[in-house]
């Protein structure tokens, strides 16, 4: 479904990704783990078009994303839940969800999508007229994921969904990810919470200093010495 080949990317003169290859197949849940500053967020941003690769190719179902304007990428079926959620904090939950359905294809099915999202997150329905910024961290994460789901994506990019949340809420977020998976959506998830993320994904990539260090199934990654020593503290 998603295919990255030899991608270099960065900000100005600072290069964050080096010759990176990555694949996500339809129906899979794939994790990307690695330390702070390894390029995980850059990877997400380069896929959704927020930054452009300086070299390499990115394809979604055969369509070249590098040649697609950033605001058109969402209509190819890629929804990105950015790091720190980035809700429109002074808009209501309803308005935030409305923004998720901005593109034409989603706008036509706005009412249906709202139903789907409220089914997934009944909490959001209760809070629909509340300013997004006044909700708890967990509720805001729900709203951010719900906003992304409004576009009826095929591929959901989740950037550190558990960051800054209380341990109990982190559990809930990973439960959510499981439920989203079960609904048939393909998920690419970046996480520092390695133990948790390996429980919900099929495969994972370990990224360090902008390149893929290793990859494998969740079981393989859990068993790998590099992962164990560096990230699981075993």
């Amino acid at each position, binding site marked *: 479904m998603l295919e990255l080949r030899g991608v270099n990317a960065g900000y100005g003169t600072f290069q964050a990704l080096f010759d990176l290859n990555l694949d996500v197949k339809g129906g899979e849940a794939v994790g990307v783990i690695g330390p702070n500053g390894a390029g995980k967020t850059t990877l997400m941003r380069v896929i*959704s*078009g*927020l930054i452009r690769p300086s070299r390499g190719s990115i394809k979604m179902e055969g369509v070249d994303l590098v040649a697609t*304007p*950033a*605001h*058109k*990428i*969402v*209509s190819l079926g890629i*929804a*990105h839940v*950015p790091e720190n959620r*980035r809700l*429109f*904090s*002074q*808009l209501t939950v309803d*308005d935030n969800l*409305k*923004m*998720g*359905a*901005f*593109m034409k294809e*989603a*706008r036509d099915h706005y009412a249906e999508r709202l139903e789907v999202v409220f089914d997934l997150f009944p909490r959001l329905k209760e809070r629909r007229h509340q300013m997004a910024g006044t909700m708890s961290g967990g509720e805001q994460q729900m709203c951010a994921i719900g*906003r*992304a789901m409004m*576009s009826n994506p095929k591929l959901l990019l989740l950037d550190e969904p558990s960051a800054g949340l209380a341990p109990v809420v982190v559990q809930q977020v990973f439960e959510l990810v499981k439920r989203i998976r079960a609904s048939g959506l393909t998920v690419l998830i970046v996480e520092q919470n390695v133990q948790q993320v390996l429980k919900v994904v099929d495969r994972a990539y370990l990224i360090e200093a902008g390149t893929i260090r290793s990859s494998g199934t969740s079981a393989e990654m859990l068993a790998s010495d590099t992962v164990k020593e560096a990230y699981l503290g075993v």
Partner: protein
Amino acid sequence: MGMQAFLDVFDIYLLEAVINGILLGGVLALLALGLNLIFGVIDVTWICYAELVMIGMYGMYFMVQYYGISYFVAAPLTILLVAVLGAALHYLVIAPLLTAPPINQLLATGGVLFVLQSFATVTFGIDFRNLGIRLPVLAFGDMNFSYARLLSFVAALVGMVAVYLFMTRTFTGTAIRAISQDRQIMALMGVDAKRIYLITSALGGALAGLAACLLVLQYDVHPFVGLSFGPITFLICVLGGLGNFIGGFIASFVFAEIISLGGLFSDLEWGYVLAFAFFIVMMFIRPAGLLARRR
């Protein structure tokens, strides 16, 4: 007898001035809304905002007086004309400077102000022109109200309600509110930020166009007519808190009342002096505007 009669007359004048203040406030609020919209969404101050109104007033003058088009046909055409002008201003002047320091943007729109004034002077001359439409004066008891002011007030309110509905009910309006909070992630919503800025600028222009249609009923048009309400519009926006729509709305009526009531005790010019003095005092008391959030 003497004293009582004086008080009766005084009260009537006072009430008349209060009502005239409210009527004036409507049009000022319309102007403030347009300027606040541009500032709040694009984070740019259109110093030349009142000059767009001036061009719109000329548009009305020529269509109605020169080509004999009816006022009610000329008005939507003028709104459209100034909307296009607003979009062009964004596309040609603001967009290339969007990442430049604010002072550059300020200087650039300041430059546009002089360009538009000079353009009007060269093209239309410095004569004062008016529509030649004399609207009746409405007598209500002992009070007199100009029909033009009443019409302007109602039209300004209708315009503001229309903007409110557009901003809250439509996807594009919601995007305009969203983009002012987080521009970077708009692409993730499938929103082309450039297009939203262009639409916002056209909307700001349309509001200036509507104001032009209303002001041309009450004031003569000349190349420097923008100076009569440009500065006051800025004071209103600053007092209300730049970019704060509700603050701007309230400040419009506060200023209009000061001007109108101040004018009651002596002449209209003193009303303006009082309004500016009030502004200076307020800037010491509430420097971030009437409705500033306490941080």
